[in-house]
């Protein structure tokens, strides 16, 4: 059984399932601005040749909502309701993603961490297709 990212080049999938995944972003060597996802031309200063960096895995919730209709990509997974948020990474980028948790688990400004969620399992190989999510940082988690 292997965990396979839904798309290469957006996030890491650590071999050790207890290790947090990280987002694959870019840093401009000229002005230092960070981006997610990866890009070649800096959006701030237009310099070419941004460098690959890993971002996260923690960030702060800028805004969020809770959606009460089925997930858009219904072919992947059926859920009754889910959170969506925009998360500010310490490096600068604001990332929009599905949130893991219940209706009352979120508040603006709280700290979250990146996690992987299984979208589907290949029944013949047991391989899991995974996507990144953010979840509220567990109480008392090591900083």
């Amino acid at each position, binding site marked *: 059984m292997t965990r396979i990212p839904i798309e290469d080049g957006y996030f890491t999938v650590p071999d050790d399932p207890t290790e947090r995944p990280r987002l694959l972003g870019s840093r401009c060597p000229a002005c230092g601005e960070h981006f997610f996802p990866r890009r070649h031309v800096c959006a701030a200063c237009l310099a070419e040749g941004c460098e690959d960096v890993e971002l996260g895995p923690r960030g702060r919730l800028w805004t969020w*909502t809770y*959606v009460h209709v089925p997930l*858009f990509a219904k072919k992947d997974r059926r859920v009754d309701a889910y959170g969506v948020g925009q998360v500010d990474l310490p490096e600068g980028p604001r990332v*929009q993603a599905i949130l893991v948790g219940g209706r009352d688990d979120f508040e603006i400004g709280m700290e979250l961490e990146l996690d992987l969620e299984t979208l589907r399992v290949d029944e013949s190989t047991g391989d899991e297709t995974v996507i990144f999510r953010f979840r509220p940082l567990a109480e008392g988690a090591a900083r």
Partner: protein
Amino acid sequence: MRIEGAAIAGSGMVRFGNHRDRSLASLARDAGLAALHDAGMTLADVDEAFVGYIQPKVLVGVKAMKELGLTGLPVTHIENASATGLVALREAAWAVASGRARVAMAIAFDKMTDMAGGGGGGRGAGRDELDSTILPAAYFALWAQRRMHERGTTPEHFAAVAAKNWNHGALCPMSHRRPDHTVTVEEVLASQVIAEPLTAMMICPADDGAACVIVAADDVVRARQPGRRIVRPVASVLRSETYSPGHTFLGPVVGPATMTRDTALAAYDDAGLGPEDVDLAFCHDAFANEEIDYYELLGFCPEGDGEKLLMEGETTLGGRIPFNTDGGLIARGHPGGPTGLAMVHEIVQQLRGEAEGRQVEGARTALAHLVGGGSVCTVNLFRAE
């Protein structure tokens, strides 16, 4: 740059709604003929056409134009998500203002009921799949939640926008939603929660429809329509996003709010007008919370005063600056491409003084705003002579 020498010759539309049983071409034909009849023209009079539609189909625009005739005219496709119709009009207005065409048509049609799951989703794999996993309502709800956090805005404010637009729709024969009773804030709040704090009645319907506007040189309109009040597009600005820190690149996002402010300032500057000159306005109210932000970003009140302007009734018919007199996207409907041209259809009637039952008295200047896919914004100003 101000648009000089161009005037609206005619406009027409197919009432938005569920037209599952009709082809795109037949919707386009009916809207095109309505505008041509209004202008007193046939396709033989039209030098150029700009065709707006959102769905990815090769040459569907050129094929639909054949329903109106085969005259050899150049046809150009326009796709800018929800802003498509107004961008088609922009091209038509400039084709005439530049002297390249004497008469230009902007026409748009779409069937949202054909699109898998609604706008923006369900296409392709890979990055597209990452991009489309979130419902459109959710990302505008993110904006609403942030405003509630920063400004103390409440769901009642968003419901008041929606109720106003539903009630405006009741007065407009071209509105999809024409409630048979006065819609209240309580009724809007009691409808199904889609993405908190947005309820179903705060969200535009997924519509099918078509709309068309014909722009012509001033002298053409004067010669063909003696005695009719001339309505001119005087400014049309289109902008995409400017980078600022915290920009969200991946996923359906609403784009920075400043995009609307920058676009509006440029349009006012081009026209030599200011918000104080505008008698009525139209905005991208696909989600009710947006309208309050646009009151501020379009310059109709200071930042933070949007709720006050709304609750004092200033943006309702009869108020200082009525917004979305035809019901807006929430009531008149939002098939995608045609939406902006439906706005212009209503503006033409209002500025001609022909908007029976919902006329803004003495209206001379109107503004039409749309954002598209959160990544583009267009602001257009129209003036009656």
